[in-house]
């Protein structure tokens, strides 16, 4: 079965870790993830600037590794990202900001990608809140 997974929360939120563990279980169960879409505070889960103490779970890093290892289509909503100061190199240059805190494997794109994924999937699952 095909899943579209949307994440609405930052890496430090329990629901981001929950989304990651769900995604891992979905793949382990032989299912497909058509796209991961990060919206609202979910854009923070894609930040490359998160710093976590060594004795804690680095969920942002684990998302990056999971997406790369499985070559998943992973989109961060550009409007939500800009509003929250999560910028890739192109946007940082465009808006003359000094920090680039979004890079591969994440792509910035619009809400059309969320709808496209929802159309392609058997199930749309959202994670957010605590």
């Amino acid at each position: 079965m095909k899943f579209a997974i949307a994440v609405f929360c930052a890496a430090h939120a329990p629901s981001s870790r929950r989304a990651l563990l769900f995604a891992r279980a979905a793949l382990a169960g032989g299912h497909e993830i058509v796209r991961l879409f990060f919206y609202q505070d979910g854009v923070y889960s894609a930040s490359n600037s998160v710093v976590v103490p060594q004795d804690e779970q680095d969920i942002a890093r684990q998302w990056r590794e999971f997406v790369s290892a499985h070559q998943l289509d992973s989109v961060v909503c550009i409007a939500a990202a800009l509003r929250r100061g999560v910028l890739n190199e192109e946007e940082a240059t465009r808006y003359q900001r000094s920090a680039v805190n979004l890079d591969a494997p994440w792509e910035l794109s619009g809400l059309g990608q969320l709808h496209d994924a929802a159309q392609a999937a058997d199930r749309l699952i959202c994670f957010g809140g605590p």
Partner: protein
Amino acid sequence: MSKSLLVISRQAPWSGPGAREALDIVLAGGAFDLPIGLLFLDDGVFQLAPHQDAKAVQQKDLGANLQALGLFGIDEVFACHHSLAERGLTTPASAQPLDSAAISQLIDRYDQVITL
């Protein structure tokens, strides 16, 4: 045939970007001619309250976005009757009021749902 999506908007208009970002999902779907429904629930019904003044808190008026729903082909707009009554709001012209049983049936009618 396209899958249908119901967006349930629960945030008050100026509690952060939540109300705006829920509407953005709806309008984006409309722009792609997808079958999208919108239900205002809980504090989300405050988005429909009349004579609000966004400028007083230096915010954008969501009214323009709400008025754009029709232009984007979004005709299925609903409000929870219980939420309206709880908050002392009268039935808005722009949304069809539904009781709890009708909301349950509404959710059943859609293929997917996002509640934010």
